[in-house]
């Protein structure tokens, strides 16, 4: 492998996934609970499985 320094402003998918899915502000479900039986908030935690599949797909390619 070369000793090249890759300088990327271009957002690679790996970097995007790393930050957009794993970091940043995450609101937890505690806002939901305080309003009787009406869920006011949805946070896309269910996306994690999809995200992992996507990471595998893109890193393989």
């Amino acid at each position: 492998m070369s000793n090249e320094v890759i300088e990327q402003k271009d957002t690679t998918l790996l970097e995007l996934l790393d930050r957009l899915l794993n970091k940043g502000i995450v609101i937890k479900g505690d806002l939901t609970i305080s309003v009787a039986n009406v869920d006011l908030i949805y946070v896309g935690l269910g996306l994690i499985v999809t995200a992992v599949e996507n990471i595998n797909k893109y890193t393989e390619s």
Partner: protein
Amino acid sequence: MIEYYYIYAVINKLDVNSFDIGGVKEAQLLVYKYKDYSLIYSLIDTRKLETEYKYLMQHEEVLEMLMEKSDVIPFSFSTILLSEASLEKFCNKYNDKILSNFENISGTVEMGVKILISKNISDECKENDIEESNGYSYMIKKFKEFTNKKNKIEEIKQKIYPIENSIYKLVIKDKKKYNENGKIIFNGAYLIEKENMDLFRECINNLEHGEDFEVMVSGPWPPYSFVSLDERREY
């Protein structure tokens, strides 16, 4: 049709009312103002957004645009509130933490540094010439794998040292992760002053690197790794 509230970020500006670009699914970006800051959101027709590259990019483009105008507290992808009342509820509940996050990240950006090697360390660590013929040999083999791995982590730290040494004066905070089991052996996030972005890149570019690894510098990013509403998480 029911509409949901897709949240991108909080910015510490109140005089922003319209934007030149759209958000996820090309939806118009809207502003919810609260005290000294604004929540940037758009209305979408779904409660669950698929993790598609297009949507990730649209989310990120909104944040990049916001970064040019203000300090930005970025939200995780696909944070969707179900009513306008929940916007106010969110701001009421987390007002102090939002302000505290702004204090922490004011005037800064996040830069990423990844170090990649050509061969998985875990594979290399398993390479030794002892057969698993009996318990003793097996234990020796495992011990050798352990020491190989330990040596490799030391090697990683040796590789990273000159990089960190060159940028430490610029770094306000950092988050670092060493990985002995893959090609990405180091993943670092560094919070720096906006004005130091070019200097940060320059410091790394000026270094001589080894033959067996690559250094990936990315950014500027909104400070994803340095914001949180959770007191237990370290800023």
